[in-house]
């Protein structure tokens, strides 16, 4: 057993394994376009690449980018369904990464996260349909598709403002109370969007907004899952980049400090109010961008897409994957989305076939695709009990004391220490 393990720790073996895996997955998917398993194998390749720990991280990132940007669209690009599923996975990955900043880094449990997503989606939806004509008369709406790109920034800003608005009352409450308050905030936003069709019709109430203008880029209309796949992919790349940069920044460390011990963090000079508000605003702004993309992709939004269920779903992704760990959150989001949009549905179809064939007799209410809450519930409890840190827990940076000591020896002494030393020397 140990021998096999040792073999797997060799870089050459891992290279071969990853290559072989990718080859088999692409061949299988190419040959049988209908096979769900082949598609799942293709998606799992990202995880395989990630866990090939003997490869340098640059190589791994390179292979990952190659798979996501070239291999997958090249093989499955013709298949609308797969591109759609991949896009949805991407949308949830992006949102989970945003929530990860609030929950994972800063430790502020937010159960109303979908409100920011809604803010982004509505900020594009209202102006990209004729809806805005109801209360603005300086321009004939809808805006044309080219406005989609600036509206990514608008969505970001609107959501960030929402984040700060939510953050303000929340600064005084902590822990469980915070969870409930954010939940209440999310529900208030949903109810308002649901009823803001009078006295002035702003959101068109429960009827929702449609048709939302399709974006275009250099004259190409972006309207297929294939196109959106790339839009989402680029935004995820950006979000991951920002996430990674934030993680090691002064701000990111301040968030973690607040998560671990608010009082101690404050004592170390971290401004609580500013730091917490920034966490909410950053997390929210990611959801805002994704909201704009979502609105454009669906061409239709209504308040039912922004329920508490969605907020909980995103929270499940973060907790399942490992809150605070970027790769973990990506994995969690992928698992939950595929479970939700694909596996439960497949299982439903399967049962339906059995029912039609007369093998089993289940009432149609027992359709597994409607059992999100059941599955989420069990997942949440099991995760809380057995893996509270998630599937890929966040890694702590370890500091090698010896290394540090060596550094100190070599580094020239500066500041007050130098002055002291000089004084000593003077004597």
């Amino acid at each position: 057993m140990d021998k096999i393990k040792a073999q797997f720790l060799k870089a050459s073996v891992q290279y071969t394994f990853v290559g072989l895996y990718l080859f088999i997955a692409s061949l299988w998917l190419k040959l049988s376009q209908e096979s769900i398993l082949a598609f799942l194998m293709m998606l799992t390749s990202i995880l395989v690449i990630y866990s090939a720990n003997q490869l340098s991280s640059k190589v791994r990132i390179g292979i990952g980018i190659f798979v996501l940007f070239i291999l997958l669209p090249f093989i499955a690009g013709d298949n609308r369904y797969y591109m759609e599923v991949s896009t949805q996975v991407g949308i949830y990955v992006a949102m989970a990464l945003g929530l990860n900043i609030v929950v994972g880094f800063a430790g502020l449990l937010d159960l109303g996260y979908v409100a920011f997503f809604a803010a982004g989606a509505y900020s594009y939806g209202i102006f990209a349909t004729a809806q805005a004509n109801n209360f603005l008369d300086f321009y004939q709406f809808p805006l044309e598709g080219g406005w989609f790109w600036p509206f990514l920034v608008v969505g970001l800003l609107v959501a960030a403002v929402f984040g700060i608005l939510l953050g303000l009352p929340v600064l005084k409450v902590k822990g469980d109370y915070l969870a409930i308050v954010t939940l209440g905030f999310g529900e208030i936003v949903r109810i308002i969007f649901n009823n803001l069709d009078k006295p002035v019709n702003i959101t068109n109430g429960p009827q929702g907004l449609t048709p939302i203008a399709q974006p275009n880029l250099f004259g190409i209309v972006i309207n297929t899952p294939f196109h959106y796949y790339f839009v989402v992919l680029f935004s995820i790349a950006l979000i991951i980049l920002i996430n990674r940069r934030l993680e090691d920044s002064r701000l990111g460390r301040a968030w973690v400090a607040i998560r671990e011990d608010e009082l101690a963090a404050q004592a170390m000079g971290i401004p609580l109010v500013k730091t917490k508000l920034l966490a909410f605003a950053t997390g929210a702004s990611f959801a805002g961008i994704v909201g704009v993309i979502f609105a454009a992709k669906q061409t239709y939004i209504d308040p039912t897409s922004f329920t508490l269920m969605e907020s909980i779903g995103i929270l499940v992704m973060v907790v399942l994957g490992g809150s605070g760990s970027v790769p973990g959150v990506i994995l969690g989001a992928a698992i939950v989305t595929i479970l939700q949009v694909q596996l439960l549905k497949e299982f439903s179809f399967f049962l339906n076939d059995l029912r039609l064939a007369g093998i089993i007799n289940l009432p149609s209410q027992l359709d597994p695709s409607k059992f999100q809450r059941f599955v989420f519930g069990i997942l949440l409890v099991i995760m809380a009990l057995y893996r509270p840190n998630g599937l890929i827990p966040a890694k702590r940076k370890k500091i090698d004391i010896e290394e540090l000591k060596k550094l100190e020896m070599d580094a020239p002494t500066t500041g007050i220490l130098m002055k002291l030393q000089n004084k000593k020397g003077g004597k």
Partner: protein
Amino acid sequence: MDQNVLLTMLPQVLIDGLTLGFLYAVVALGYTMVYGILELINFAHGEIFMVGAFLGTEVLLIMQSFGILEGLNPFVAFLLAILVASLITGGMGVTIERIAYRPLRNSPRLIALISAIGVSFFLQDLVRFTEGLVRNAFYLSGPQLFKGIIPLSSSIFIPTKTLLIIISAIVMMVSLHLFVSRTKWGIAMRAVAQDQQTASLMSINVNKVIALTFFIGSSLGGATGVLYAQQYGTVDPYIGFILGLKAFTAAVLGGIGNLKGAMWGGVLLGLIESLGTAYMGPLTGNAFGAEYKDVFAFTILIIVLLFKPEGLFGEAVKEKV
């Protein structure tokens, strides 16, 4: 609408508000008890209430299908439904505590809260699943036991069931109060709420006391579910969540961890909500109406947490539980 109409509506609105308020109050007791002892928001409490509503309705429906309901005194049937529902939900509460909360007692509160949300979602679909399987529908309408109406004046009526609900709620609250303040177990509960470790040194079995707390809180919640089913007729698997949140708001409003506070918070919230729902439309020229009723509770919650996080009765009464 002119002012006269608004005024004649008032007594009815107040009665509705009181009924709702007492329902909130009893459910809020469950939140407050668990919070007082474990400092945990038992998110699943609303679902326990919902299960109670289903169980009570099922008991009545089963009795009806066997033809015994007609011959029975409605009070006996009512008590039977409450008894069955509260015993089973009480057991459920203990089980949930044992499986989903006890192993997490020493882990961060965030994890325990996530587990509680999980239980709550699980129960919603579990009930939907079983009802779908048994009755082929998600919502359930039970037989109405009390159809009488007591006239107070020529224009104000109190339905018997409403009166009964208010009385039952008061009975439950008073007996809980007596239990907590007069019995040995009640004193043990208060001791555990004060300090678990010291209590365990005083030869109090902390686990047993916590289990008992869950049993009592959950059985009260379940019994309230039966009252709810009688008042509103139809129940569905999702009534618990939003009602649970409002009951929690009531508990916070009165000062969480405080029994008396939960009661006053519940009644107050019920009245505010009922008044708001009835008068917001007419007062704003139908610009904003009853569809905003859920916003009231959440707004109150946010305001209370901001300006008086200890609640209305948080300081007046020192004892927890």
